[in-house]
């Protein structure tokens, strides 16, 4: 009886979405994994090669430096995006006259695709900022930030934070607004300071928003490609290639489809582990209502 009821529910609600998901994602992904064990050249394959492609991938020095660069990028962007986004959400939910306009402005960068944003910011870093710098004799922007690995890293971070904080802000606003006003009123009557209220009442009550936002930024950090491509193009000297771009370069510029595909699988495993850890930790911290 219970089984039949569940089956019925599955057929009504789960079957179609899961079938689409299976066909679009699972099937090609499995085939992609299969190909890493062959001598695939992008067009066809002749024989199985075992783990050779994975061994070759790990012997590639540039792959290791890309992994390190990507790791740093993920951590820094994750922290900054969420701090900024939460701050923006607080600004917008403070009862201000212009809160709505502010929110609109904060969200606007998110409306546009990464390649376009990258192109705009490349123009800003290369032309606009040096131009202002010379006008007012600020040394900081006179050289394009995209010329040095370190500054190019921060350029990537700035654009990423600018692009994604508005989006995460929306999630945090949803969380902040969902807190019952009586709970906050109770905290106020108990004499809790604003800071105390934020850390002991607001944040725990909106833990779900943090779970989602942290997950999205983690994923976004690992998969970042568009902004990377359009802003730095991996330069200077291929030193700012994030992992997605490295895989593209390996497969489609150097023609190494075998290692490129293997690195994509390695990347998937890394992200999977990081995301599982993050989600399970966050979920544990959520308040079950």
């Amino acid at each position, binding site marked *: 009886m219970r089984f039949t009821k569940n089956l019925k529910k599955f057929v009504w609600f789960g079957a179609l979405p899961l079938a689409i998901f299976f066909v679009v994602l699972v099937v090609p992904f499995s085939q992609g994994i299969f190909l890493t064990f062959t001598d695939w050249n992008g067009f066809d394959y002749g024989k199985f090669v075992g783990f050779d492609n994975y061994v070759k991938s790990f012997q590639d020095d540039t792959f290791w430096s890309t992994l390190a660069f990507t790791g740093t990028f993920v951590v820094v962007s994750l922290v900054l995006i969420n701090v900024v986004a939460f701050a923006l959400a607080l600004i917008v939910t403070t009862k201000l006259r212009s809160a709505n306009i*502010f929110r609109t402005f904060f969200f606007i960068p998110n409306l546009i*695709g990464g*390649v376009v944003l990258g192109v705009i910011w490349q123009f*800003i870093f290369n032309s606009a900022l040096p131009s202002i710098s010379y006008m007012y004799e600020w040394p900081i922007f006179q050289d394009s930030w995209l010329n040095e690995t370190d500054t190019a890293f921060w350029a990537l971070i700035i654009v990423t934070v600018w692009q994604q904080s508005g989006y995460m802000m929306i999630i945090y606003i949803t969380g902040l607004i969902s807190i019952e006003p009586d709970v906050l009123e109770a905290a106020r009557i108990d004499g809790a300071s604003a800071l105390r209220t934020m850390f002991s009442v607001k944040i725990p009550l909106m833990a779900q928003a943090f779970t989602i936002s942290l997950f999205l930024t983690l994923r976004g950090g690992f998969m970042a490609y568009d902004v990377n491509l359009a802003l730095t193009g991996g330069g200077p000297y291929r030193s700012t290639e994030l992992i997605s771009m490295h895989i593209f370069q390996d497969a489609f510029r150097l023609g190494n489809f075998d290692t490129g595909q293997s690195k994509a699988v390695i990347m998937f495993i890394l992200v999977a582990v990081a995301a*599982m850890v993050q989600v399970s930790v966050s979920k544990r911290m959520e308040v079950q209502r």
Partner: protein
Amino acid sequence: MAKMTFKAKARTSAVRSIVWVVGLIVSIAYVMPFVLVLINSFKPKMEILDNPLALPVEFTWDNFNQALQKMEFFRSLTNSILITTLSVGSLILISSMLAFYLSRTKNKFTKVTFLILVSSMIVPFQALMIPFMSIFAPFVSLNNQAALIFFYMGFGVALSTFLYHGFISNIPTELDEAAALDGASDFTIFWKIIFPMLKPVTATVAIINALWIWNDYLLPVLVLTPETQTLPLSTYLFYGTYATEYGQAMAGLVLAIIPIVVFYLALQRQFISGISSGAVK
């Protein structure tokens, strides 16, 4: 609120003023790049290169006329709207249903399925790009727009379901149970009770997916033909192998940005009412 002392009131208003100033500065910083694009969209290429910050010497619509023509603006806009609305609509439907099933039916199968869905969100597209195209080539050549919408359903269902799942888990099960006792079927429970409560998260899901699909680049490039190309694809026309038509590119960007900003402003109102009806006061 009336119980607040005068001192506390003064302090609150001081804090608010500071927050307001911070908000204003950050807002300006956030919008500045677009202002820069707008200013430069009225300038010829050489003027842009000479001084990107100056206002146009002579106000001209030349860049816009060129851009409208080269981008085939209205055709691209129609294509974008068609693909985005149909994909988002389908995604809302299938994801809310799947999330309802996964969060309300607790067993091993739903647990594992949910885990697979969550982990699938980190599959990089490049890992399956080429096998993907070979599997779906016949479908794509039959109708590339339908194929693209189908792909978006497949790629988007995980994140949307995840968002719905989080929201539905917070809706007390007592509601469903009471309805079930009254003899309502699961179908009725979902559509009559649960779905109407999902408005705020549906708005979020709609915005998130619409933005992603509207701005997506790689998948449409692979799937669509020039006749069915979307608006963002058409804005890349101005970036040549070597040279960039900066003026036209800026105008193209403005043209591509306007529809999505209008869409956002229109949906924003719904978004606010969706949230405030649930929470504030």
